[in-house]
């Protein structure tokens, strides 16, 4: 009788372990997390939820540099601050119109 009870307890404990393994499944892509490794690759655990890792901004503005006048503004976008980039673009447009006026005059 004692042996029977013992094996019942053992089987019960093993069942708990197996059910726990089945309930966990693979890492979360969007869901609650307690550890970084709870989240799938490309995700991080922030404030208890798995979130996509921030995508790093690509270096360079995307232009190949073939256009001279537009590049003035685009190159400005490479700088760390967005405001100077916009200013550089506007300055280039102003210079272009001034040259056109002088030519027409």
């Amino acid at each position, binding site marked *: 009788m004692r042996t029977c009870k013992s094996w019942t307890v*053992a089987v019960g404990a*093993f069942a708990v372990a197996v059910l726990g393994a089945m309930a966990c499944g693979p890492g979360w892509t969007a869901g609650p997390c307690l550890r970084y490794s709870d989240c799938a690759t490309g995700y991080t655990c922030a404030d208890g939820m798995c979130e996509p890792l921030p995508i790093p901004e690509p270096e360079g503005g995307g232009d190949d540099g073939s256009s001279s006048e537009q590049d003035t503004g685009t190159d400005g976008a490479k700088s760390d601050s967005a405001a100077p980039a916009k200013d550089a673009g506007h300055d280039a447009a102003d210079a272009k119109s001034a040259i056109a006026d002088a030519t027409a005059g």
Partner: protein
Amino acid sequence: MRQVYGRSVGALLAVAALSATRPAEAQQYLIGGAAGASSGIEGGGPQGTMAMTRTRVRLAVDVRIDENPSDVFLVGLDAEVTPTSGIGADLRYGRMLGDRGILSGGILGILAPWTLYGACAVFEYRIPIAQRVQITVAPEGDVFFLGTDLPDGTAIWQFRLNGGLRADL
């Protein structure tokens, strides 16, 4: 004839005297080995999330000294097997409660591929199934508060039920 009788009695007395005294023995180590698996629930974090824990398997050795059989030192090798794997170890000190129970506590760590360190408290109950073999049932409480796998400001608690086999080696 009387001489032979006297020698015989003397020899019997000598044997009796020798058998009555036990030779001095050095202290002996009482060693046991165990294997088991555990799972349960865990919680913590900023949102108080609760979930099923990762399943963990454990291979362990417990050592006692015959002079103080109530003091138990336990060393375990732990492996998280699902859903993601990790390897760790634990070191505990325990006290026997009767013949079948052990209350122990110590430190526990997951060492690779991420790290997680904490403390654990375990009550193990041993159910004999053979002369030197027992089934073990062990509710366990863990708290993790350090490690690279832990987001800042987060502590994790776990409540597990461990089941396995143990043998006197």
